[in-house]
């Protein structure tokens, strides 16, 4: 069984399944991290709030500061059933019903004592590292947090790949900001000097873990797929998307995960789901868009009830796209961080996203693809209806469209979504029957 537990609450939601060593390892890593954070006021450890896309975990690691990722806290709140109240509180305080629910969930959590996913209090930030990568809302989110905390905020503006490529000017712009703004800010709060050799070591470790992550995600090409690359995938990306990239722990986690999946392949097993193993892979689909977190298990189950396995997803690329060959490269430390940031999924223009999805549908021999369009996220969602048509046209495979939200349970209509999924899979079945 190969289901790690990035979001700890997800593990609880899927408690029926037995746990693998990698899952236990991830859980322990996360618990230790949050414990360190809770202890920070006593130990004097410094904490830096930042975002998943374009996170600079290796760089933060060289300064021994602890990352806090508000999106992760928000999704954890969604999984733990807390987000409704948090969002309600934020709306009462004047935040619009129209905007991203991650932000409101975070504000609500902050106003309710800032208790993190493991039940311990999160420390106040010593620095807000506003890595403005792939999403405009980030900018506003940290402006809002800057009102709440008496700490500096440093901006890292990551240019968008509007023309579908990274240019030297874009790279230079990011590297200059790292050198002139971000590194000095980290030196100041940590009291340490920037150590490039240390950064190189961290980056080399990142690349190793990334190799194994890509190997794992690409096993979705096998028939049957030994993994679910969306619902299961969100666990696999946990360590590398969050606080552990560049650590030995991450290397070990991904090595262990890989060997567990090798074993599943050897045994010819399908993915593990909350209800046990998927024994018959009836449908292979690619999914675009983030999952819903408040009904995560129920959502997953709708797929497994149909015998559907997600063989590839774009959500597992929001914190870094590695299956195109990119690896953190220790020989050009700051440039590689810049390329990493600019390469994150939501920083890619729409034609590139369409190409990527079409490639997934083809390379992973999918029957079709599904878009889960979340109300919160214009970065993901604006343009998805066009993506749907373009990918259908290019691949000749059917696309399906469902709508929900990330952490606002008011926008998860189980019956609607279930109906849509059922009709979608029926359509694939009919096409197949017609084709044969």
């Amino acid at each position, binding site marked *: 069984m190969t289901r790690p537990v990035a979001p700890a609450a997800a593990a609880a939601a899927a408690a029926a399944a037995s746990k693998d060593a990698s899952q236990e390892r991830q859980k322990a890593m996360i618990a230790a991290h949050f414990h360190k954070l809770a202890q920070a006021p006593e130990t004097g450890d410094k904490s830096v709030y930042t975002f998943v896309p374009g996170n600079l975990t290796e760089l933060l690691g060289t300064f021994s500061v602890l990352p806090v990722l508000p999106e992760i806290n928000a999704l954890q709140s969604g999984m733990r059933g807390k987000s409704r109240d948090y969002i309600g509180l934020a709306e009462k*305080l*004047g*935040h*619009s019903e*129209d*905007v*991203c629910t991650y*932000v409101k969930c975070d504000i609500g959590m902050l106003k309710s004592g800032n208790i993190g996913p493991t039940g311990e209090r999160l420390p106040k930030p010593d620095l807000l590292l*506003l890595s*403005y990568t792939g*999403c*405009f*809302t980030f*900018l*506003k*989110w940290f*402006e*809002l947090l*800057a*009102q709440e905390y008496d700490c500096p905020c440093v*901006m890292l*503006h990551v*240019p*968008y790949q*509007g*023309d579908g490529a990274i240019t030297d*000017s*874009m790279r*230079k*712009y990011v590297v*200059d*900001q790292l050198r*002139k*703004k971000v590194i000095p800010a980290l030196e100041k709060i940590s009291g340490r000097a920037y150590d490039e050799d240390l950064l190189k070591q961290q980056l080399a470790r990142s690349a190793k873990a990334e190799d194994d992550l890509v190997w794992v995600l690409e096993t979705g090409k096998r028939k049957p797929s030994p993994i679910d690359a969306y619902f299961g995938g969100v666990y696999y990306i946990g360590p590398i998307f969050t606080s552990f990239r560049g650590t030995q722990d991450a290397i070990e986690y991904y090595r262990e995960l890989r060997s567990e999946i090798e074993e599943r392949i050897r045994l010819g097993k399908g993915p593990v789901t909350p209800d046990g193993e998927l024994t018959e892979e009836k449908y292979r689909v690619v999914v675009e868009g983030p999952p819903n977190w408040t009904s995560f298990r129920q959502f997953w189950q709708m797929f497994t009830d149909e015998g559907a396995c997600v063989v590839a997803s774009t959500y597992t690329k929001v914190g870094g796209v590695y299956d195109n060959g990119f690896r953190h490269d220790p020989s050009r430390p700051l440039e590689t961080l810049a390329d990493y940031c600019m390469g994150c999924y939501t920083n890619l*223009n*729409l*034609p*590139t*996203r*369409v190409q990527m999805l079409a490639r997934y549908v083809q390379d992973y021999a999918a029957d079709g693809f599904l878009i889960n*369009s979340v*109300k919160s996220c*214009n*970065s993901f*969602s*604006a*343009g*998805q*209806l*066009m993506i749907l048509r*373009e990918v259908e046209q290019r691949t000749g495979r059917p696309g399906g469209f469902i*709508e929900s939200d990330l952490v606002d349970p008011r926008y998860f209509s189980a019956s609607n979504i279930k109906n849509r999924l059922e009709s979608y899979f029926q359509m694939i079945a009919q096409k197949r029957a017609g084709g044969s």
Partner: protein
Amino acid sequence: MTLASLLQRADDLYRDLRFSAVRDWKQRTGGLAVGYMPVYVPREVLHAMGILPVGVMGAGDDLEIIRGDAFYQSYICHLPRSTIELGLNGALDCLDGLLFPATCDVIRNLSGMWMMQFPGKYVHYLDVPQDFAPEVGGAFYRHELEQIAGALGKRGGKPLTAAALRRSIAAYNENRALVDGLYELRQREPWKVPTAELYLLLRAGCVLPVEEHSAMLRDYTTAVRAADDRRPMDQARVLLAGSFCEQPPLGLIRTLERAGCYIVDDDFVQIHRWIRGPVRADGEDPLQDLANAYLFQGIPSAIRYIDQQVKGKDLVDRVQQSGAEGVIFCAPSFCDPALLDQPMAVTAVERAGIPWTAFKYAENTGQFQVIREQAGTFADSIKLWSE
């Protein structure tokens, strides 16, 4: 031109969703026309290359959206759907390209959609810097401008020369000064410059060559200064905040005025006021001067990262400068930049003891009854407090 005919002309331009003025200009001059989405692009660069910059501000409430809705979910603002509709119905055929400035993720993603939908056209996402150090963000921005000039040069724009750019900067400086002059006049004598009229003039600036637009502004200013029949009324002075991208329908502006509000400052068609004060027009390196203006003279808009300043301070300052007695937050539905910014602005406004109210609109909102009542009550309460 009489005031009435001038306003008629501005109204015609506003309602002309085929962009006939742009088509005529192209026919007359043989030049290129390049569109831009809200909020800000440096039009001076286009102008210096002999290109007509054309503001694409959506379609208001005059266009039935037939295909645009098939591109967007219900929870996305209205502007991109009407823009797509205008693209698909051929109205924007007269544009040789479209610039998508870094305003928000919706406009950003629309740039990629445009590339796929209209493959022959020049499409560029103009990534404006959020770092304001000249050697960092300034260098990046300058490179962006050079890239645009290079690409448009290949498509038939004249080569960008320093002399031409200096002349264009001067032309837009004059235009900005005229717009500012009208805003000042409206602050002093709001009965002379009804906002519905001022708004039409701002919109005319989206499709007319800058010289022609400046002439229109001058004529209007002269005419309303002399219009003694425009007498003061007992209205509440308000600042309207948040309408910087998707524009409210003209009917909404009129509704607010009829409900007892003098709008004495606003965020409409913000490109005209994005740069505060003149851009240096006599420098050795005018492209750098233009980049510096972006860095140091740009307004603290919701779409710009507020680096050293206090959030909301600029709004409070504007209230004081304009003599507004209250703020109406008037943002498009589902507009991330405006709505995420609003709680911070509200905090600042409340701290300063300024009354405020808020509502949302879409560019095609057709019913104003609720807004009329809310604005009327707000205006009444302001007048009551000030007595």
